[in-house]
């Protein structure tokens, strides 16, 4: 009788075995990059240290949530001079605002493993609503979440005073992140 019970249990559990919730982020395989134009020249940068908390079940995308906290001191702004400059009051004012955070508020499935994630980005004490497009790439070991959005640095007071001149450093900053995560079944 025991065996039939087990078989029965297994059969009942089988559909659930396909459900997965991604919660464990792999920091080494996750990246945040950005790109902006300086005198018409594309300049690439990124942040090396950030923590991500997330929960995503492909079967229930609207219940998904994500929270990213970035250590602004880990910036690569394109050159050592720019790294130093970015810490200052006119840019991130890092001693007062050492971190940037993004907290999701709503996720909408667009089909084809594409999602629209809304949330609040807080930088230099200013919070703005952002809409991030995210693509989910299921993988064997880890799955990948690729997101991108464009922010306007002046909305956050990033680059004040002389640096507010957008003909030298463009207002738009293209942000791209990749979060790798494993799930639990």
């Amino acid at each position, binding site marked *: 009788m025991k065996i039939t019970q087990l078989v029965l249990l297994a059969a009942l559990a089988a559909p659930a075995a396909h459900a997965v919730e991604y919660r464990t982020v792999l920091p080494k395989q996750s990246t945040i990059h950005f790109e902006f134009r*300086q*005198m*018409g*020249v*594309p*300049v*690439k940068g990124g942040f090396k240290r950030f923590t991500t908390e997330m929960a995503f079940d492909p079967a229930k995308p609207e219940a998904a949530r994500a929270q990213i906290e970035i250590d602004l001191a880990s910036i690569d702004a*394109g*050159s*050592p*001079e*720019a790294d130093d*400059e970015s810490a200052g009051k006119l840019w991130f004012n890092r001693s007062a605002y050492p971190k940037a955070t993004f907290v999701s508020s709503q996720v909408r499935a667009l089909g084809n493993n594409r999602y629209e994630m809304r949330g609040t980005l807080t930088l230099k004490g200013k919070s703005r609503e952002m809409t991030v497009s995210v693509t989910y790439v299921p993988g064997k070991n880890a799955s990948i979440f690729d997101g991108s959005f464009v922010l306007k640095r002046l909305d956050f007071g990033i680059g004040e005073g*002389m*640096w507010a*001149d957008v003909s*030298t*450093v463009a207002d738009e900053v293209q942000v791209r992140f990749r979060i790798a995560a494993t799930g639990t079944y």
Partner: protein
Amino acid sequence: MSVAMRYSTPAIVLHWLVALLIFVGFPLGVYMVDLPLSPDKLKLYSYHKWIGITVFLLVAVRVSWRLMHTPPSLPAGIAVWQRRASQIVHGLLYALILAIPLSGWLMSSAKGFQTVWFGVLPLPDLLEKNRELGDLLASVHKVLNFTLLGLVILHVGAALKHHFIERQPFLQRMGWGRKERT
């Protein structure tokens, strides 16, 4: 002075255009490097790069023209060693005014900044971003530039000496003064 004593008009125009651009681009380079980071500094760096790439293109045209046209022969009475020296210095000047913008372009690539000529035409990055290589190429750029400065002083000094002290019509060879003069 017969026409054969003069460089061809394209050679003369290119000579002075390149000289003018270097006379602007060189001091600009020296001035901009020590500025604290600011939008103005970024602008000057771009202008410097645009001027430098323009020099590179003009020199490419100039060298091609030079290879297809024999320059006017030197006046009789110029010592053999001076003829030889002038050939060597002219060769080095051509090499430097090609190598200097080239080193600047490569330096910019290695430092992770693509060169976009006049903010419009992106030049390919021939090197990957590499901080050490970028710093090395900056030193190369600087050394080549100060070698150029030394040679230009020699070059200008020699031309002026022949013209004013030996009273040979040297400056006319490069288009200064009227064509018909005896």
